[in-house]
């Protein structure tokens, strides 16, 4: 079968790329190994009949970054709406109350109004406010969409601006754990993307969670005539004379001059025989554990007002694989009930993310694995208790997923969430016709991944050589 383009993976970037190509009459197919779409931002359900029946969960979604109000222009989210011809109202965004970065004896709040963070810095780090203003100017004038810029360390940039290391650690904490493939540091271009999407723009959550976004994308893909196949595992990316010509999917050969892969750069290399000798992108080390608790009631706002708490129990923030299975010294704690207009009565939910260590989890026996998850659960509950000491809700249900779970359902090597530390910002690989989209192209989060799919489809599928119809 012949196509104009083949997209591997029906995550956010793959769906967006498929939509863009089909919108302009390209014959495109999206191949997804899993039974459902979403990739790293998918969903699942758990049956728990004694205690309330079937519950729906999002895999990874704490927050949708890049919040805008209706009608705001020139922002990543508004670009996404225009490029995919989607309506703002369809996303049913519920903005956060505020979030906070909580270190010992100090916290910095931030919200969808940047002034809050600026005031917090000015109040708590008065000697650093001029430097903070300089950083803001630097971030504003930086063109993070320039696909030609190489790696530069965010820490060294921050050290050249700030004398107070605590502020550097606090500002970096949310940005690292919400998107860095690198340990303890991140590429400055990625820092800028994250700074804008978290601090300038902020968080919201679509009513209905990630399913709302995925349904919109699937519906749009159908409307523009794109094809999608589930349980369609690509075995090999086919090349001829050094160029990509298609894929082998479950024994069937599909041909196309353009192959867009969202499965990760190292994962793509493994599937492409002629690429293995040409490039060896490294597998990132950062992987996580997610604990989800459902309580019989919500935590009242007067006991915990923030939507997301970036917690760290030391002055220094250590962002690297845990040395002992998981690291309870820091965490991201998401209180999804604290998104506005979701404050209804009923069950309460809390999600907690800890940094983990893939190699150690992989070595555990079945019993050891279950016992270790129990320890994670205890640490997570202790942290909820620390953040909301008066809360006396009963746990109705809990679910914990580990690096092994991530690897099993996303096929990302070593359960990485933010992919390789070797990004390919323009999406190209040494094999012409084969392009990387999604996390390993270097745009982050749900909005970033969608924009990655859009911009790579534009560049390599609509404008590139040989794309005239």
């Amino acid at each position, binding site marked *: 079968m012949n196509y104009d383009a083949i997209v591997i993976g029906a995550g956010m970037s793959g769906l967006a790329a498929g939509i863009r190509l089909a919108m302009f009459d390209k014959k495109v197919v999206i191949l997804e190994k899993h039974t459902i779409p979403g990739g790293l931002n998918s969903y699942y359900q758990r049956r728990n009949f004694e205690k309330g029946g079937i519950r729906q969960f999002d895999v990874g979604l704490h927050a949708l970054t890049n919040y805008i109000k209706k*009608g705001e222009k*020139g922002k990543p989210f508004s670009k996404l709406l225009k490029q995919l011809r989607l309506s703002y109202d369809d996303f049913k965004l519920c903005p956060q109350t505020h979030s906070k970065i909580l270190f010992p004896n100090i916290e910095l709040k931030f919200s969808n109004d940047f002034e809050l963070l600026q005031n917090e810095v000015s109040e708590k780090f008065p000697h650093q406010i001029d430097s903070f203003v300089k950083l803001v100017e630097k971030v504003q004038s930086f063109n993070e969409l320039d696909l030609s810029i190489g790696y530069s360390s965010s820490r060294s940039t921050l050290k050249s601006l700030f004398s107070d290391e605590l502020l550097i650690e606090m500002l970096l904490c949310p940005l690292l754990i919400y998107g860095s493939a690198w340990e303890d540091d991140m590429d400055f271009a990625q820092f800028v993307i994250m700074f804008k999407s978290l601090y300038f723009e902020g968080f919201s959550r679509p009513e209905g969670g990630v399913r709302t976004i995925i349904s919109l994308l699937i519906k749009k893909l159908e409307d523009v005539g794109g094809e999608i196949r589930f349980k369609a595992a690509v075995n090999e990316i086919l090349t001829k004379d050094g160029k990509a010509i298609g894929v082998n999917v479950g024994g069937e050969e599909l041909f196309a001059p353009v192959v867009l892969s969202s499965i990760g750069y190292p994962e793509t290399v493994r599937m492409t025989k002629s690429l293995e000798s040409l490039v060896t992108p490294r597998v990132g080390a950062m992987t996580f554990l997610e604990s989800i608790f459902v309580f019989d009631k919500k935590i009242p706002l007067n006991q915990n007002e923030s939507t997301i708490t970036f917690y760290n129990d030391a002055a220094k923030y250590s962002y690297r694989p845990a040395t002992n299975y998981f690291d309870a010294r820091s965490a991201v704690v998401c209180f999804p009930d604290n998104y506005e207009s979701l404050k209804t009565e009923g069950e309460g939910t809390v999600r907690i993310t800890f940094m983990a260590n893939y190699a150690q989890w992989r070595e555990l026996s079945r019993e050891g694995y279950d016992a270790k998850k129990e320890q994670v659960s205890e640490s997570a509950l202790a942290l909820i208790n620390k953040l909301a000491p008066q809360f006396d809700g009963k746990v109705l249900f809990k679910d914990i997923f580990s690096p092994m779970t991530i690897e099993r359902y996303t096929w990302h090597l070593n359960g990485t969430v933010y992919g390789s530390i070797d990004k390919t910002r323009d999406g190209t690989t040494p094999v012409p016709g084969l392009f990387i989209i999604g996390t390993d192209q270097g745009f982050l989060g749900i909005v970033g991944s969608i924009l990655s799919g859009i911009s790579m489809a534009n560049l390599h599928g609509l404008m590139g050589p040989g794309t005239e119809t």
Partner: protein
Amino acid sequence: MTAANVRQIVLDIISDIAPDEDVTVIDDKKSLREQLDLDSMDFLDIVMELRKRHKVEVPQEDYPKLATLDSCVAYLSPKFA
């Protein structure tokens, strides 16, 4: 096709790709980018819609010729002839 027809074709496309923009107040001599919230991705969409709806091809090196409504009409009119 008249210049007015070509102008309308471009306006129709802009209205579809940027539904929030008021295209009735555009100054034909001024850059579209300065008057409307259009970025390079949107210009790609104008080109793609010209191809899809009217089978008119605009090679990448000619994208700057779509800068103003006047220049759009001047550049596209021969292609519609």
